């Protein structure tokens, strides 16, 4: 596999395409506060830029998220990663992978890109220290072959941050 973090890119199903169009319209009409969808013609990969909430450790810092949608979205969660440099956070690895249950085991089609963004922002906002996860180096090593975070078996051991 040559592409870095891209999952095997099968084109979106008609259902996925239809649903994403509607999510995009909803986003353009009322985007989550502080988030900006970078306009591209690619419905299957969204690049989202946002600024850390004021009054938090990440205030005024700008980050980019890359959201890739699987063929059978929303039956499957989208793959969401930070485009490095990723924020320093106990649940965010230096390669941009995010340890957040709703992106993996707890995903439900009731969620949307917009609700994911809000969850990620609140995860950052509630952080009390800027540091990498304890197992960052080991994890990065294991991901060297371009493994998707969706292939990781995550342990959601801490829901405080």
């Amino acid at each position, binding site marked *: 596999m040559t592409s870095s973090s891209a999952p095997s890119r099968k084109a979106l199903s008609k259902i996925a395409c239809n*649903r994403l169009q509607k999510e995009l319209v909803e986003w353009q009409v009322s985007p989550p506060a502080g988030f900006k969808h970078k306009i591209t013609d690619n419905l299957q990969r969204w690049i989202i830029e946002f600024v850390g909430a004021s009054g938090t450790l990440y205030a005024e810092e700008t980050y980019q998220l890359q959201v890739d949608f699987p063929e059978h979205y929303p039956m499957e969660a989208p793959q969401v990663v930070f485009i490095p440099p990723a924020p320093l956070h106990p649940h965010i690895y230096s390669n941009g992978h995010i340890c957040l249950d709703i992106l993996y085991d707890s995903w439900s089609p009731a969620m949307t890109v917009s609700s994911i963004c809000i969850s990620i922002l609140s995860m950052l906002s509630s952080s009390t220290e800027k540091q990498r996860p304890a197992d960052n180096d080991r994890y990065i090593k294991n991901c060297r072959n371009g493994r998707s975070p969706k292939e990781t078996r995550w342990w959601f051991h801490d829901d405080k941050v």
Partner: protein
Amino acid sequence: MFTSPSQGFMDFFTETFQISQSTPPSDLYRSVYSEIEEVGWKHLVSFERDPSSVNFSVIDENERKHILEIRLPQNYPESSPSIAADVPYICEFKWSMNSRLKDIVQQFQQLLQKLQKFWSTMDSIDKNLLVIYPKQPTLACSYRQIYLGNDCCLLLFIDAQNPTSLPGCRFLGLNTTTEIIRKKWQRNGRKWSNERSFIENLSLLLETNIPGCTTTFQKEEWEIECGICYAGQLPLGDDSQANNGEYPDYTCDNPCCQRAFHTVCLRDWLRSITTTKKSFDVLFGSCPYCSDPVAVKINAS
């Protein structure tokens, strides 16, 4: 009147009472009353004292009814009041010490006059094209998502100050189809002319007749959307599939939720997670929205 008021309530009561004591003296209200009279009591919808605001109803030349909310600051009329209304934009209001409420109403009427062209443009879109979103647009709303056919939609952003000019747009749909339409739009962009009607311009740029609300699929079909695929009719890739075009046919039993789903979508979702239980040919799981139990037959069709 209050037989056994709790301490907390009494505190609250005295507090509010004190606040209202310190709010503008009744002199002010007397002058506001006379200003309302100048506008005409029949136009008054409501008058709130704390914080002070006056709501008037204003009818425009095309019989549209507008509610104009004028909020009065503590030191009214020294500082200018602020206003709110269901309009796409509010121009700056002139205000001086000698200004009165009727001056604001008058300026609002001038704004309404300016906006007539905008609303008639929006009306022509709503009447002639298949508007998917918003379903019940407010008067302030200056965008529309319209259906172009072939699973392609166009999101139009109309400039409220210059409604007949070339609108901002976003094409939504499969990349290949939208690419063709986008190119036409770019190529024909210069042909947009303020002399033609908005709809005529639109068809000219897109080189096609845009489906109107008279097309075979009716607006109602978009009304109830499946909570999973967000579609009214099931958009399966293969047209020969039996469930294609089906409407949501399953509703969550929880009265607070009542989300609608296509049985097919709900079944596919339940199949894709490990917590679903299967008994005979029924899948038992939980609603993606409220987590209440749901059950669908495996061979749903």
